[in-house]
């Protein structure tokens, strides 16, 4: 399973208007590019928990983990590696 691909597809399908499709790179900040708001972060977290069977804690909701496709991929890999999965 390619985590980055799955996350990218989710972001493209759910947050980017058609005119912006393909305009976001894996390193681009969601915040700076206005891709995501607080509702969007919750949708992203739900997607991650359901797709990758991981558990995202409240203190994980920081830009270092969730503000770009690259960061999200690294974060999910870390959770999966650490075995932090939904109970």
């Amino acid at each position: 399973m390619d985590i980055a691909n799955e996350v990218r597809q989710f972001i493209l399908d759910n947050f980017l208007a058609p005119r912006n499709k393909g305009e976001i790179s894996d390193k681009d900040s969601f915040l700076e590019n206005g891709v995501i708001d607080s509702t969007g972060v919750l949708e992203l977290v739900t997607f991650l928990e359901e797709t990758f069977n991981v558990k995202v804690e409240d203190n994980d909701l920081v830009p270092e983990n969730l503000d770009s496709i690259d960061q999200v991929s690294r974060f999910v890999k870390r959770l999966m590696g650490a075995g932090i999965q939904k109970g």
Partner: protein
Amino acid sequence: MQLADYVIRAAANFPEKTALLCETEQINYKDLNNLLLSFCGGLLSLGLQPGERVAILLNNSIEYVASYFGTMQAGLVAVPLNRATTAKRLAYVLHDCNIRAIVFESGITGLVESALTTISLPVYKIVVGKEIMQQSGKNPVLPWNHFLVSGEKETTAPPRDPEEIAVILYTSGTTGDPKGVMLSHRNLISNTESIISYLHLEPDDRVMSILSFNYSYGNSLLLTHMATGGSVVVDNRFAFPNVVLQRMLETEVTGFSGVPSTFAFLLHKSMFRKMKFPKLRYVTQAGGAMPPAVIKELQKVLPKTKIYIMYGQTEAGARLSYLEPENLKKKLGSIGKAIPGVRLRVLKPDGTQATAREVGEIVAEGDNIMMGYWDSETETAKVLKEGRLYTGDLAWQDEEGFFYIVGRKKDIIKCAAYRISPKELEDLLMASGFLVEVAVIGVEDELLGEAIKVCAVLEGGRQVTAEDIINYCKANLAPYKIPKYVSFYDTLPKTHTGKIKKDELKKVSTPVSEVPAK
């Protein structure tokens, strides 16, 4: 007196004091004043005429504030707009108010260009950001830094008539086209002074602003703090609430303001409950009714902070009523009484005043009430009658004169022969402890006309079924108020100001699961 005088006055009184603390930079009043005067000079050098409109399409930032007050100092009308929009909607607004200049960040050039294709007159594009844009087409490109030095610092602007339009704020428009609310300097000054008096704002106050300045509530945060010479901490990262909470501690803010979804998010999806904010003097909540259960939770987390529940509309320059923190327990669920300078009444459909506990429409009078909707006499006539604002909000007053909102006139569910307030059900459901947020709507029903549907977001880890929700309602409500449908969602769709889009829920929103109750 006009609104830019707030910054000019603060620069004279507190030149070195910090006006704005953004994420990576800050500015004192002296420099902010210079910046707004440069921006004003730049606009005047373009030959724009008094009363013409300048759109501001920026995140909360130093550039936003300089553009906003600089536009007014030049005798022009500021039109703050939400960046998170579509080209179609942006084009509608730019066309509607016949915009002459637009300030935006280079990162959204595509959006702006696309919107401008439908505008025939040339529009000056004032671009903030590092990327250099090429001149192309009919719309001249003016990079921010070049633009600022293009005109003389305008220090001798003639006194403005306070009756002139200062700002046009476009309503979020969950249905139909957005409407431009025209607010004069007098409207906004009146509302600003009133808010300052009841919040007891002082120059030492420092507010955390996560609300966009293009939203009337965010606009009032900016105005009240510039008027007192206070400071505004700007943070555009509320998508990550822990970051904002940490910054609130670091910057020792004395105030915080949010809409109901802000507090739901903080209470359920952040470290808020585990933190302490010793410097936080007050919290304000407006932008829609917040369920009493959430207010109680907020009080538990912030036992030493004054909590002000407020009510208003963009059409009133933001604020119409507030509940004093001292009355929060006794009058839980109330929006309080009219703010200083405003008269509020509950009127029945025949225009007579409702008696205590009788439901009617809230009608407001005061210097803060808008001039009308831009270029729309028909829409204006629907809500402004003889200078009174008909809010479309249904409410009742108790024997002591405290107002209690029942709901929007248009949201009332007409189920069989009954008129049901969604707010009553929403407040009850939030008190169950099962839910993070909820919206109750009416959906078409052959038999009943409208049937009640609950759209709920469950608290994490809760194993609650639709039947549980229905049973809870049965235990607490009259039979005719029992919902027919329950749908569960991950989150509810919201406007950029955090209001739940009930119309969207009625139309297309896809729930995680939908269960008709038995």
